[in-house]
């Protein structure tokens, strides 16, 4: 066998074994404890011992969705950060980039995810959807249509939906706080 041992630098040889904590686990600890969120975003852990399942509440303080509290569930698997966190909106909301099942169209959650991104980037990205809903990447096509064609009507629909009202036959969750 080759003699690898001598290639180890002295200071490294002095290093002790590392704890048996998975890279994904440490990375989630790092991401969460270094979160730098504005007051408009809060995380909630149903089980504080479980870092891999939690929710994020976004309460926009400006824009069309001001006054609402929007809740997203986060599920992180053991292949993080190779794989992105799985994020869904837990309420039925009227938003061009969120469908009625809670799927979210945010590029960094799927096609543009990279391991250098982190939970903070995802959360900031989600908040941005409420400040600047995007009619070009629709998941709720009717909402996107409306936003593109008639901004006034769209705004009215948003307010209506946030009160728990109906828009075009669909009842939305009451998110006003």
């Amino acid at each position: 066998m080759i003699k690898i041992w001598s290639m180890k630098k002295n200071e490294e040889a002095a290093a002790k074994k590392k704890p048996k904590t998975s890279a994904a686990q440490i990375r989630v600890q790092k991401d969460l404890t270094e979160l730098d969120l504005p007051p408009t975003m809060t995380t909630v852990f149903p089980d504080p011992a479980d870092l891999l399942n939690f929710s994020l509440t976004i309460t926009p303080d400006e824009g069309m969705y001001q006054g609402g509290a929007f809740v997203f569930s986060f599920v992180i698997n053991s292949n993080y950060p190779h794989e992105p966190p799985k994020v869904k909106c837990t309420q039925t909301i009227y938003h061009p980039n969120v469908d009625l099942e809670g799927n979210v169209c945010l590029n960094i959650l799927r096609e543009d995810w990279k391991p250098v991104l982190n939970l903070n980037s995802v959360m900031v990205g989600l908040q941005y959807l409420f400040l600047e809903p995007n009619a070009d990447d629709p998941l709720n096509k009717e909402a996107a249509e409306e936003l593109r064609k008639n901004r006034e009507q769209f705004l009215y629909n948003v307010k209506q939906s946030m009160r728990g009202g109906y828009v075009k036959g669909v009842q939305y969750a009451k998110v006003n706080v």
Partner: protein
Amino acid sequence: MATPDVARVNGSSHRTDWHDRYYHVDQVLDRPGPRTDPSFMAGAGVKEFLRTQCKILVIGAGGLGCEILANLALSGFKDIHVIDMDTIDISNLNRQFLFRPKDVGKPKALVAAEYIMKRVPGVTVTPYFGKIQDKDDDYYMQFNLVICGLDSVEARRWINATLVNLVDPENPESLKPLIDGGTEGFKGQARVILPTVTSCYECSLDMLNKPTAFPICTIANTPRLPEHCIEWASVLEWPRVQGEKKMDTDDPEHIQWLYNIASARAKEFKIEGVTWQLTQGVVKNIIPAIASTNAIIAASCCNEAFKIATSSAAYLNNYFMLIGTDGVYSYTFEHEKRDDCPVCGGESLEVSVPRSWTVERLIEMLVEKQDIQIKKPSLSSGAKHIYFQAPKQLEEATRPNLEKPLVDLVPDGGDITVTASSLPFSLSLRVTYV
């Protein structure tokens, strides 16, 4: 190869080594070359090591694994172990040449081991049908070398972290070279990882091709490809219709359901090409495997194993890339170890503290101590959270620990993982009490 006079298949491995069995391999092992390592023991010594002592572990008995096992056996490794958790599927038979139609449904590891032993006298292949995660450190400690021919990133990350963690500064034997092969169509790579010495698998995680993911709004609104229809079925329709029921990509009924939904969607949008096989391929993220690419990569992995086991020639340092998609290119480079690698990077410190110290006192020490000076450290030990600076709820949940004696939370000789934004990644502390 020289023709054997008599093949004696009974008794020790020595006795099966008929005259000139390894005539060609021995040309390399019998005398040093101008650039062989000074530690190379040409002749009997190295042959003895390779053929009677060296124990090698092969992870994966699929496309790469079959090739690797055959190559190792034919180049003189005699004590080979193989782990694989899969059973043989009919679709494997086009390239996994150790398997026959009668083997469909049987564990790959068992059938592969049996085949090699029958075909190459004197070689012992010990199979394990199960997951690599089933085995503990003692198991991995018995090998001199590990070769991986896997298609899963997760399994690779696991074995890489396990071998890095295995390195014990007081025991040179604990450092197990890891040779990792991977292919994707006409592309492939082979690399040599010397845990804690060279860059590890985790160091290069961001270089990986990630699985193709389509924008969810494309899938929902403007499908153009058969893959879009399949993803629509698996990403959007499955959770909507099946609710909490978990999709099992190994269950043919689940694939059938997805196939039906995807086909209907394809018809609606006049898209052609949704097949059962493509559906399975997309949801299981099956990367097209080409037998000849597997052969190239497996061969380079085995050459490296041979060179490392015998010191007969310089080994790969440390990353070989094969790009056969646009002509044939290969590129060999030294991938650098990353300081902020969560597995092999970061620092590791021994701290000796009084038994009376509280968690808070330890944190003060980490913040104040000249050579450490960590701003706002968060601490955990295994799955236990000791103190988290944020988010608020977790800070509040762990705050009562600040006043507790450290010894109540971390045993003597236990490890603490420290993260902080001022650290490249993390710092591990081994705590002893005085």
